């Protein structure tokens, strides 16, 4: 295990026992363990469970997108079919035809994901780039249409229901209470995350990066790009299936929409938002996904519009996602220069808030007029009451928005200048250290 440096040669840069890594993984385990103690409501437990599931599926998706450069529009096929196979397995257990602990049902989902990835991935991974994306889109549509054609398997409109409280309790765990399901999900989440992280450190994982960067060259160093993509696709399908299987246990109902294009789109969108170029990106994306889909949709009817805008700005200004923003700031912190930016960040946040308030007020008023006109002209927004029929509200909102935009632009220019100066300083610092 410990790689002793060769005699007379410099030591390797990797460390077999990396303290920082143990700390990060310990922290991750701790967060998974303590989260349901911090947020104790059953609603919170439901959300945490969904986050755990989303983390697995998004990490699995990023094996394709971030690590392999494969833009799949059909990831929900594998998580969704995993869900269906898992719920059917659960029902077999309920019917007494199969003796399997409920805690292993997600593995049935994983095997289903693996199987379908092996089958369908063989077709799609023959190609890369746009062709690959098109094939995944086609397969997604195919499976979606199958869900309408095969109601016995997909359950038609009503879906398939199951009951996770079956069989004798193991160690007193019945999976009746949500928190017990949460801990099952958390366990799977931790193991899957560790496994997928480990994958990035193996020959296959590294060659997958190589295929992403330059598929042509990979062929000239002995590797079949198709084989690399295919294997990665199966790994991705397996873990997506595990996530799907956990979702089946969590909701005890699986409907056809879990294999749909909207679900596939959500995985793509949030993995990108979280940051596909970093391992941690999809985890951030998954947490955001659940927050957006559950909380934001409660908060406002226009949530899809906000989400679309955020996505748009992210693609344009921070294509590396939130993870890249965090990493950039960590780099600054590592050089002890982050503190200098706090006024800049404060100005950006303040002006951005003004834009959000102004634009949000106008959008919400439009939505109110269109959808809730019957409730009268008054509406609540950020604690204030706005009259959607009075010009004052509109002018007020427009004024806040315009002021926000102007000030934000000024703050942004100053921030960019500061940022540039600091980056130059860091470059110099690095050169200086190298010269030592």
């Amino acid at each position, binding site marked *: 295990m410990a790689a002793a440096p060769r005699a007379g*040669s410099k030591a390797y840069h990797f460390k077999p026992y990396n303290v920082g890594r143990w700390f990060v993984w310990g922290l991750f385990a701790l967060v998974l363990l303590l989260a349901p103690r911090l947020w104790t409501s059953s609603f919170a437990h439901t959300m945490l469970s969904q986050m755990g599931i989303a983390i697995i599926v998004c990490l699995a998706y990023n094996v394709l997108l971030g690590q392999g450069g494969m833009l799949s529009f059909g990831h929900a096929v594998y998580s969704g079919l995993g869900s269906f196979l898992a719920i059917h397995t659960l029902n077999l257990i309920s019917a007494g035809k199969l003796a399997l602990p409920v805690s292993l049902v997600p593995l049935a989902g994983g095997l289903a994901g693996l199987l379908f990835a092996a089958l369908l991935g063989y077709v799609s991974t023959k190609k890369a780039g746009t062709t690959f994306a098109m094939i995944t889109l086609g397969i997604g549509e195919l499976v979606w249409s199958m869900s309408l054609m095969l109601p016995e398997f997909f359950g038609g409109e009503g879906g398939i229901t199951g009951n996770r409280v079956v069989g004798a309790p193991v160690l007193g765990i019945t999976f009746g209470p949500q928190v017990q399901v949460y801990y099952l999900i958390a366990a799977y989440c931790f193991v899957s995350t560790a496994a997928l992280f480990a994958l990035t450190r*193996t020959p296959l*994982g*590294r060659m997958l*990066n190589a295929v992403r*960067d330059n598929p042509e*060259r990979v062929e000239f160093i002995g590797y079949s790009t198709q084989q690399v993509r295919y294997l990665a696709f199966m790994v991705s399908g397996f873990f997506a299936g595990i996530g799907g299987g956990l979702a089946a246990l969590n909701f005890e109902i699986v409907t056809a929409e879990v294999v749909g294009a909207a679900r596939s789109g959500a995985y793509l969108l949030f993995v990108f938002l979280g940051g596909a170029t970093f391992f941690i990106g999809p985890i951030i994306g998954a947490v955001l996904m659940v927050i957006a889909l559950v909380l934001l949709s409660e908060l406002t009817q226009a949530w899809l519009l906000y989400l679309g805008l955020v996505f748009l700005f992210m693609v344009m200004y921070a294509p590396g996602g939130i993870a890249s923003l965090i990493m950039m700031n960590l780099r600054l912190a590592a050089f002890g220069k982050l503190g200098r930016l706090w006024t800049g960040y404060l100005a950006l946040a303040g002006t951005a808030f003004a834009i959000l308030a102004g634009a949000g007020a106008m959008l919400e008023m439009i939505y109110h007029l269109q959808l809730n006109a019957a409730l009268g002209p008054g509406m609540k927004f950020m604690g204030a009451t706005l009259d959607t029929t009075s010009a004052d509200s509109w002018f007020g909102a427009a004024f806040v928005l315009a002021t926000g935009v102007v000030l934000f632009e000024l703050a942004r220019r100053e921030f960019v200048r500061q940022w540039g100066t600091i980056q130059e300083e860091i470059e110099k610092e690095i050169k200086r250290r190298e010269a030592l």
Partner: protein
Amino acid sequence: MTAAGLQATPGEHSARGGPAPGTPALELRDVRKSFGKTEIIRGASLAVQPGERVAIIGPNGAGKSTLFNLISGRFHSTSGDILLNGRKIDGLRPYQINRLGLARSFQVSNLFTRLSAFENIRCAVLWSLGYRYAFWRFLADLRDANDRTDEVLEMIKLDRRRDVLAMNLTYAEQRALEIGITIAGGSPVILLDEPTAGMSKSETRRFVGLIRDVTAGKTLLTVEHDMGVVFGLADKIAVLVYGQVIAFDTPDAVRANPSVQEAYLGSLLADAQVADAGH
């Protein structure tokens, strides 16, 4: 693949049983390649013995790069045979040809841009050491792969830049990394497509020395425009004109060959002699 065994240890291909003595390391027999109606390679024939160092020269559009693409499997020939150690390789995929012991570099650096110099080389080492698609072993534990990678980085003088992303290397460093990836797997037959393209005179001179070192003992084919590089690297010159090898001999014999002079070389060689005299 049957080829996997051949690559068990880098640099030992020729030592293992293999072809009968006297078999050329690389042989082209009347190779032809057409793109649409245009025939680019028109019956090229060439036999390179193991350990020979050959420069392929020729005017622009003679088909030098196309020939490399045919040999390395990037394109497939229209007719004719290409043999590596007596084994037919035309029609095989590039990775299959590579596993049989042939590696090539590219005229435009073809790197894994978002990976470090170290990772670039390690990727090129993995297959030759038999790690294939392993997902059950950690890269950090692969002593032989890491040692070999460090060794190659030292050879191409990038050991101090090992953790820099390929895209952040200087142009000359990228060219060196390009060569490093090519030789890392230990293939006994090396094809270099204009290794010094775009480099300054002084960089070129240093680089020729480097190439000579890292390809020592191997069968080498280079495409080159710079006659200084040609004479620095090759002990034989193949002249490709309009898709045919019109001469294949030692530099002096090629210089004296009337048909070569007629075809195009006179002026180029005269330039080179002037350049030589200048040294």
